[in-house]
């Protein structure tokens, strides 16, 4: 699965889609594939202030617990509630129905700390 060009990426394998001052965040195809079958996602509560690259939750596969980091700072606006019943959506559609949470972007300047699809591809696919 190609990493979409319209997204930005972190070295920790999260993607972020910035739409005005709203950022939608998920994990990359590389990340979901490395983790294997995802069985549980623990996300920050709505309203929480989170800081760029902070550890804000976990993604669990059958075998392992992996930390989840946020690629941008801001206030958590929404979490993907459908993942409670269907965490495997993260495996099936990491860039679509498997999104994790939305943040009210605090500092658009943080984008410069993130990677383009092609730069992320050099980390993930080499």
């Amino acid at each position, binding site marked *: 699965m190609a990493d979409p060009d319209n997204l930005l990426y972190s070295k920790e394998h999260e993607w972020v889609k910035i739409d005005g001052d709203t950022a939608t965040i998920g994990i990359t195809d590389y990340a979901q594939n490395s983790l294997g*079958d995802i*069985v549980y996602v*623990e996300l920050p509560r709505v309203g929480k202030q989170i800081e760029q690259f902070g550890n804000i939750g976990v993604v669990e596969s*059958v*075998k392992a617990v992996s930390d989840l980091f946020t690629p941008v700072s801001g206030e958590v606006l929404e979490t993907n509630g459908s993942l409670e019943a269907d965490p495997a959506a993260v495996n099936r559609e990491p860039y679509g129905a498997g999104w994790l949470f939305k943040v009210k972007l605090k500092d658009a300047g943080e984008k410069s700390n993130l990677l383009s699809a092609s730069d992320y591809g050099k980390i993930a696919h080499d």
Partner: protein
Amino acid sequence: MSASTELRRTALYDEHGKHNARLVPFAGFEMPVQYSSILKEHDAVRNRAGLFDLSHMGQFVLEGPNVAAWAETLTINAIETMKPMQARYNIFCNPEGGAHDDTIFYRLADRWLLVVNGANADKMWAHLNANRAQDVHLQNLHGRNALIAIQGPKSVEILKSHVDVDVASLKYYFCAEGNVYGRPAVIARTGYTGEDGFELFVFGEHAPEIWAGLLRDHASDGLEPCGLGARDVLRLEAGMPLYGHELTEAITPVQAGLQWALKTSKPEFIGRNALVEQMERDTYDRIAGLIMKGRAPAREGYAVYHEGKPVGEIRSGSVAPSVGGQNIATALVPKATATAGVTLEVDIRGTRHEATVVPLPFYKRAK
């Protein structure tokens, strides 16, 4: 294990590469933890059949007229009463009753095969040699012979056309010596998944052609290569202990609920006094089965609480597709909290999550 330790490869290493296995260090070997997906492989074993490389497990050959009498003194279950071609689960204990290893003895026509956990193979080889009796000859085939397991409801149908023994009428926990794809094998109706199935002990040099042949000829039946990840979920659902988790040098077979394998009628064996005393006092912490009420999985090492007080810890945990997709776990807890229906709490990253104690096993296949 230190980084400098050279990992060993089983005879099937090249076959794993052909199926995109994800390899991890396990018991000193590079072993497949999964091929396609742990949940998909689990589903294959419960509904069709799965093929496992278990060549990391220790295989010892025991020979001589006194093997049974000698081994009785080292183990908790009966050996001399085993019929020819019978297999039996057995545990070697330390003097305090803790488990050195849990194993299977196979009584063949002219020798015995003892299968030990891969991680315990060196320890067990030393233990057997330190306690060796006259007229007992030991041979260590660890890493030389291969072990291929086929597990799942289609196992008989898949295996029957490639063997010269009647696998359909082979009884559970019995074995036969024959040929698989024309290669010599001990064919045993044993396994570690809670499903029907067989374990094939073969020479390492013959393992790749048997493995590849079964997958080639039975992919259309849904036979899939399965890794150790699926195996762990399958065995936990079936309530089977895993050494290092439900059984250790400190956790006895009595604590693990394996009294059925303990033959106190045997006059003397290592650990007997400690185990009998533990059973009679009946105050010991024991392994309980837990079902989590929420969706957060319990994992090994998480603290377990009862009415706010710490009482024990999780020993194994997993999502359980065959238990309605719930999260199941085992925990070592005091007697009073190990009763079905008791509510316990599991500390998951600082938050207490409720769990209910249930009888083991979690899953039993329909007969």
